[in-house]
Structures are given as structure tokens and as C-alpha cells.
């Protein structure tokens, strides 16, 4: 280990720092959302910003997602670079038109003349018994619809770099952060998401997957919390002498199919981990991307470890029964 100082940040702090640095260097950047001011965001990702930038640029909003996300679109089109928060992704149903019919499409509708450089950040994921309207991931719901980039980091390093890249991107970016990775103790948290994070601003390119563990026997693909489950499964498999490669998608749109395909070329086996509902989702897309590319790559049937097609139950044991985890991934491998 070198003697450079390790600076471990939670994803929450990494996001806040990214926004802070962009706000310092670019007066067009501002933040809007519910409880993002004095509270610092329910999930901590705007903490400290109100104190530094004041109420003009850190704007608490009424509970009017249609209006303030629509306002984000209008401000972005007018030259600002708003970072707008939808507190839980589960709430998209009250405001999705502003997102998918306007934010995502106005670049196209205007033939490229109107840019919408807006970041919509939103929390995803369950595992802490918040029940069926506060625990969803809805990755595929966003990724299915054209015109917005859709990304989700699995650790603080990526979170900071991806947030900076998202703010600087001239396209709308949906930045989905998993509550269980935020490093907010009160939600429980995955410790491995809290990693060394440089202080200087830097970008992590959107649309590039990352091989977070190299292996040769099976490719396990996931994003956000799924990556951590995959890594844990890889550890378990290693005990059996199985060498798993883990791919962190990081981005669903653009989807880095090449990295997945290259990995499967090497391993011949594919497991997709997804905390979003299974059907018509991420797992189907990733698997199909591989088999339509080259049907002969796979040496055995692909597997998915995804959330079953049921609303998310409240009771802990029921929710845990439904969630993907390392054991299910290991079992999927054994069933191959």
C-alpha cells in the first residue's frame, strides 16, 4: 500500500462532492428537489450544499414533481444545468411525462436544436422493509425508453466520476443511486461501496461497463447492489475453485454490450443479477444481447437472478426471500 492518503467516501458524500465541485466551477448548475436543502437530501446526497450555495441554487420544492421536473427541463433548455431529484424512483408515476416525453425527447423533437443537459437523480432499491411503493429499482422502466442516459454506480469512486460526467453531459442523464449503497447507516449499507475517492474532480465515462473481478469460468453481470452480490458470490465460488468474472454494467443506456460479450467469449457462461422485476427487464436484454450477437458463445444456458414479478412485500423475511443474493447466484451457477 502506498503512503498516499486514502479518502474513503460514501456514495452519498461522493455525490454531494461532485455536485459541489461542479457548482463551484459552473454557475449554471443548481439543484432542485424535495428536502434537498436544510435536510441535505433524505439520502444525504446534497448534504452541505445549502450552507455553501444558499437557497437560490439549492431549491427545496413543493411536492410537485410534475412541475419541478418540468421546470428542470425548461431551465436546462434555457441554458442552465439543473440537477433535479426525484426522491424515490417509485414516485415516477406522478411525473413521468415530464421525464420521458419531454426531458428525454425534446432533443429529438427539435432535431438536435434544443439540448436538455439535466441530471435526474433518484434513489432505488429495497432490502430495508420499506414495502412496495418505496423499494423498487425500475431500471428497465427508464432504460426501455429512448432519449435519456441511465446510469447507476456501485461505489463512491464511480458515483463521483459519473455524477460529474452526468452534469457535464449535454444529454439528459438519469442517475439512479441505490439506497443500500449510500452509506447511510440508518438504511443499512454495503460497506464495499464506500471506497477511496479522489478529491480532485474527475469523470467516469458514461456508457462503459467495468470488469470488477476477472475470471474465466462464468460471467456474472450486475449493476449497483447487484455488483456486490455478484462479488460475494464470486468469493463463494472461488472457494469451490470456480473463477467468476464480474461485470459492473454501471450504465444501462448506453449499454456496453461489447464488454459483456467479450467476457462471455472468455467464460462461456452468463448469469445476470437484477434487483428490478425480472420480466421485460435488464436480464432479458443482457442475455438477448449476447445470444443474438453470437449464439455459439455460451457453453450452457444463461441464468437470471432477478426480483420476481411481484410487488415488494413489507415483511423482512418475505422481501429477503425475493431479493437477489449471493447464495442465489451460486445456486444459479450450480444449476448450469
Amino acid at each position, binding site marked *: 500500500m502506498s503512503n498516499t492518503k486514502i479518502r474513503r467516501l460514501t456514495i452519498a458524500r461522493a455525490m454531494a462532492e461532485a455536485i459541489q465541485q461542479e457548482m463551484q466551477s459552473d454557475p449554471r448548475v443548481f439543484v432542485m428537489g424535495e428536502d434537498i436543502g436544510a435536510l441535505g437530501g433524505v439520502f444525504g446526497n446534497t448534504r452541505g450544499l445549502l450552507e455553501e450555495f444558499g437557497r437560490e441554487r439549492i431549491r427545496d420544492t413543493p411536492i410537485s414533481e410534475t412541475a419541478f421536473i418540468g421546470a428542470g427541463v425548461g431551465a436546462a433548455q434555457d441554458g442552465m444545468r439543473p440537477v433535479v431529484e426525484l426522491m424515490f424512483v417509485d414516485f415516477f408515476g406522478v411525473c413521468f411525462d415530464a421525464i420521458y416525453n419531454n426531458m428525454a425527447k425534446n432533443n429529438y423533437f427539435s432535431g438536435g436544436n434544443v439540448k436538455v443537459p439535466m441530471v435526474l437523480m433518484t434513489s432505488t432499491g429495497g432490502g430495508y422493509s420499506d414495502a412496495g411503493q*418505496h423499494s423498487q429499482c425500475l431500471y428497465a422502466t427508464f432504460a426501455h425508453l429512448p432519449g435519456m442516459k441511465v446510469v447507476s454506480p456501485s461505489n463512491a469512486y464511480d458515483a463521483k466520476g459519473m455524477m460529474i460526467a452526468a452534469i457535464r453531459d449535454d444529454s439528459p442523464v438519469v442517475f439512479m443511486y441505490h439506497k443500500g449503497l449510500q452509506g447511510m447507516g440508518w438504511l443499512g449499507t454495503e460497506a464495499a461501496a464506500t471506497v477511496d475517492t479522489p478529491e480532485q474532480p474527475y469523470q467516469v465515462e458514461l456508457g462503459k461497463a467495468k470488469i470488477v473481478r476477472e475470471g474465466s469460468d462464468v460471467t456474472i453481470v450486475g449493476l449497483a447492489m447487484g455488483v456486490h452480490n455478484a462479488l460475494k458470490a464470486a468469493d463463494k465460488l472461488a472457494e469451490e475453485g470456480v473463477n467468476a468474472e464480474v461485470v459492473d454494467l454501471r450504465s444501462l443506456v448506453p449499454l456496453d454490450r461489447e464488454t459483456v460479450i467479450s467476457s462471455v467469449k472468455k467464460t462461456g457462461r452468463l448469469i445476470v443479477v437484477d434487483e428490478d422485476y425480472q420480466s421485460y427487464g435488464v436480464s432479458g436484454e443482457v442475455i438477448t444481447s449476447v445470444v443474438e450477437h453470437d449464439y455459439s458463445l455460451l457453453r450452457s444456458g444463461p441464468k437470471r437472478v432477478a426480483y420476481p414479478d411481484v410487488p415488494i412485500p413489507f415483511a423482512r423475511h418475505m422481501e429477503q426471500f425475493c431479493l437477489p443474493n449471493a447464495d442465489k447466484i451460486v445456486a444459479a451457477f450450480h444449476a448450469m
Partner: protein
Amino acid sequence: MLISRETKLWMYKTMLLSRRFEETIEQIYLEGKTPAFNMANGPIPGEMHLSNGQEPVAVGVCAHLNAEDIVTATHRPHHQAIAKGVDLKRMTAEIFGKQTGLSGGRGGHMHIFDTNVNFGCSGIIAQGMGPACGAALSRKMQNKPGVAVSFIGEGAVNQGAFHESLNLAALWCLPVVFVVEDNAWGISVSKQDSTAVARNDVRAAAYDMPGHFVENNDPLVIYKVAGDAIDRARSGGGPSLIEIETFRLAGHFMGDAEAYRPDGEKAFLESKDPIPAFRKILLAEGTTDVALDHLKDQVEEQVSAAIAFARESAYAPAEDALTQVFAQGEYHE
């Protein structure tokens, strides 16, 4: 509108029941969450929104409702559920995630549904309002008795559903009453930072319906104002909007550090706690301490019985998570 002594005692007792219930839940919620507070742990995991201080709204309104009447509630539903007569044991079991819970543990504290008393919830702001209109419409079309009451918070009034629902209710002259619990806060955002008008009763004019504002969390005034509105709805006079100033004595949810609250606000609100205040009134009107203490004992018993029921109940098999997605009990992959 006269209030019988019996009704007053029911109101008092029900407020007490709600309060004691929540105080107990509060304790149990913290089990397993110390030293490090982690929502995911303990016998009651997940978010917990308490309604301490808001009991007058629930009892003042629900005193006028029968089992057949419909209530749609929010993410903060205990007081409303209790006042509406939701089965306390099964609700408690639901909050514990047990098989005997109202939904067998699928719903939890933000999704309390009791069909016996036509009570339902949504954890999404203002999304009970459309369904309340629909239930009212159903009664009207079927010529069946029943009014619907939709409770929301003062933060919810700026959600599109509020506007659409009030317009629809007025347009179709539906038997529905919209009750805004103005506890001054939507999580950390104050009413004045979210709402362009100081009082939402003025918004009723936008739908040509009566609007009322009740100050100071007064159960007796709430009773009267709600009674008039509910009578009006029952007799075909159409919807009303009532905003009620009430107090959120606790944080938005348990674990909320409440740093956003102005200094002294909590102490001030506690000094106006409606339960001791109501007790004083009842005493002044001649009810004895003994009688009120007796109610308290009854309440303690109810709460203990509910908690015991919940604690002693079993969890459903985990696989039950895959049932009751569709009406035949099945789910479809």
C-alpha cells in the same frame, strides 16, 4: 352541531388509544435498532411515521363515519385507522409483518387495508384522492349509502392529484370530503416554503365547493366542521375541503433528527398537546378523573392485547411473498 358526552368520551378515548398505541410502537420500533439506528432491523423494520399530536383530526372526522363509509389514508395512517375502527390486532400484526396481519405482512405500516371498515392507504402523496372519488362515485351510482373521506397532509395539496380530484368531485357532485392535516411540515419543508397561499381552504373556491379552516387542532371544532361537511356529502350536497391546523409532535419518521425545526418549536407544540388539553376540557365539563383514568386503563389493555397478538403471531412462510399478486391469489412470471 351538538356533541354528546358519549361522543366526546369516544373521541378522548380514541385519541388516547392512538397515542398509547404509537408510544408503544415507538418503543418496539427501537428494539434491535440500538446502538446503531438501522431501519432494516428489529421487530418492526422499515419507515415509521408517527401521528402523535394529530389525533384530533382523526377523531373529529371519524366520529361521523360508519363502517360503510370509506377512508383513504396516507403514509401516516395510524390515527386515522384507529379512529375509523380498523382491527387493531390485525393492524398491529401487519406492522410487525406477521401472517395474521391485515395483509399477511405484505403491506406494512404504509399499506393498511381493512375491508371491514373500508379503510385503505397509499404511501404516494395524494394518491388516495382519486380512489376516494371513485368509491364515492360507486356509492352514488349504486344508490348506496356512504361517504368517502380522503385524508392528506398540507404538503400534499401541491400535488396534481389534489387539483384533479377536487375538480372531479365537484363536477360530479360526489359524496366525498377532503381533509388536509396541516402539521406545517412536509418532511423538512415548511408550508410556507411549499404553498403559495397561507391557508388551503381558499383553494376550495377553485372548485366551487365549500372550504373550511380549523385553527389550533381543536377536536371539538373539528368535529363540528367535519360533521357539517359530511352531512352535506351524505345528503347529496357534494364535496367539501377542510384544512385543519394540527401538530406533528414527532419527526417526519422515526430517525429524523429534525435539525430543520426552528428552536423551541417542539417544546411549544408539546405544551399544546391536544390530549391533556382535551382532558382538561372534559374535567371542566364534569367528567371525573376516575372515569378518564378508567378509559386509559381500557386503552392500555387494548394496546397490550394488540401488541401481544402481534408478537405471538407467526410469520407467514417466506414463499407467501409470491401469492396474492392477482385476484386468484396467484402470480404470473
